């Protein structure tokens, strides 16, 4: 057993949320800079170079990359040989979010209730996804999520007979509808299989993958590549003003499903695709 004080989790959560809102992970910033060299439209290049300049201003002058610093999504992978002490883990995570959004001058974008809609003023509660895994470590992944792109996400309950063509149509239909609203170039998370909520969760989790990394399953890797190239020929382009860079990546996760179903979830994310991880318990 390894004992971990939850105050350490508070501290890590706070650091990760604050830092990722000022500086994108290297894979995303590299993808944006590469795209600005390859973009075919002059207007598209102009937008992409503004986005690169925006990243520099954010980092150098400590201004959040985007004013929508997101709802705080947290993935926790907790080793089953870990004993958490010093308080309740979800309280610790929320305390970390509170600290990051208050001390880091991040926008508080969360309301207490979907219908009453009073701002909680500290960006809590977070959306916490916990998983018990093997081992004696805790892995924290934070992914603040803006709602311009979240609002354009979709869930489809396809028929098994629709197969891979149905999946492609679902993704392309979602991307076309998202258009300029979701701040292209996008990163697109897709969950295929499982059930209703599993598909959505896979789509969200897929967004935390590193741009440039390959899918372990070869056929899914080719599907990702095929979708990326179809999406980039839609012409939506940077900021939706036209061009050849509509998406930076398509990431797919799959899971076994029921004989009667083919769930497909498409979680749209903008170019401000924020994710950062830390592991507690690494010696």
């Amino acid at each position: 057993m390894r004992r971990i004080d939850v105050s350490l989790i508070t501290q890590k959560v706070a650091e990760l949320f604050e830092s990722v809102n000022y500086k994108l992970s290297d894979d995303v910033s590299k993808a944006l800079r590469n795209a600005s060299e390859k973009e075919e439209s002059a207007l598209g290049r102009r937008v992409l170079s503004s986005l690169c300049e925006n990243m520099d201003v954010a980092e150098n002058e400590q201004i959040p990359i985007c004013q929508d610093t997101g709802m705080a999504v947290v993935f926790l992978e907790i080793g089953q040989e870990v004993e958490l002490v010093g308080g309740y883990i979800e309280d610790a995570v929320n305390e970390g979010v509170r600290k990051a959004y208050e001390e880091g001058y991040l926008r508080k974008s969360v309301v207490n209730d979907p219908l009453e809609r009073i701002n909680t003023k500290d960006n809590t509660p977070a959306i916490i996804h916990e998983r018990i895994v093997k081992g004696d470590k805790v892995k924290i992944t934070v992914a603040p999520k803006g709602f311009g792109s979240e609002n354009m996400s979709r869930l489809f309950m396809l028929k098994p007979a629709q197969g891979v063509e149905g999946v492609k149509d679902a993704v392309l239909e979602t991307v076309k509808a998202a258009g300029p609203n979701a701040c292209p170039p996008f990163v697109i998370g897709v969950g295929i299989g499982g059930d209703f909520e599993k598909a959505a969760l896979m789509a969200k989790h897929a967004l935390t993958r590193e741009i440039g990394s390959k899918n372990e399953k070869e056929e899914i890797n080719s599907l990702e590549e095929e979708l990326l190239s179809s999406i980039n020929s839609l012409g939506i382009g940077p900021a939706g003003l036209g061009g050849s860079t509509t998406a930076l990546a398509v990431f797919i996760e799959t899971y076994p499903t029921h004989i009667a179903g083919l769930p497909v979830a498409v979680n749209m994310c903008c170019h401000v695709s924020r994710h950062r991880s830390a592991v507690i318990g690494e010696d």
Partner: protein
Amino acid sequence: MEIKINLPTTKEEIIKLKCGDFVSISGEIYVARDAAHKRLMELIKEGRPLPINLENEAIYYMGPSPARPGRIIGSAGPTTSSRMDFAAPTLLDMGLLVMIGKGKRSPEVHEAIKRNGAVYFAAIGGAGALISKSIESSEIVCYEDLGAEAIRRLTVKDFPVVVAIDSGGRDIYG
């Protein structure tokens, strides 16, 4: 080619702008988003006066991140305009001339833009840090209780936008 305009302006100036033009905005603009639009529409429905005069004015759909001490504002990029489509036609009919945001608008907003000789500008979504450099002053006008959603008055200098829908109804998003 880049066109410079000073806001507030007049209908005569706005109708010269064409879809796809690059425009660099200086002057004064209002800021309002979802919750403020909801309140404005409630006042209009009840027949009560609005806290701001919309005649020839501009509204930027935006909710900034907090300013660090000594700074004017935090990150300040556009939010998705379509969420304000429920209110835009009414506000345009009341004299609003300029809207700034990102993304597509409804057929009703298109019609109201044409009817009133107004314009809809797109700013670059997700470039909030860069855009904040064009903001020279920011003051809360009303609805301070809404936090990031309060109505503000900004002074901007060379705020870069593109004409997304011109007064003739031509739309850059097709």
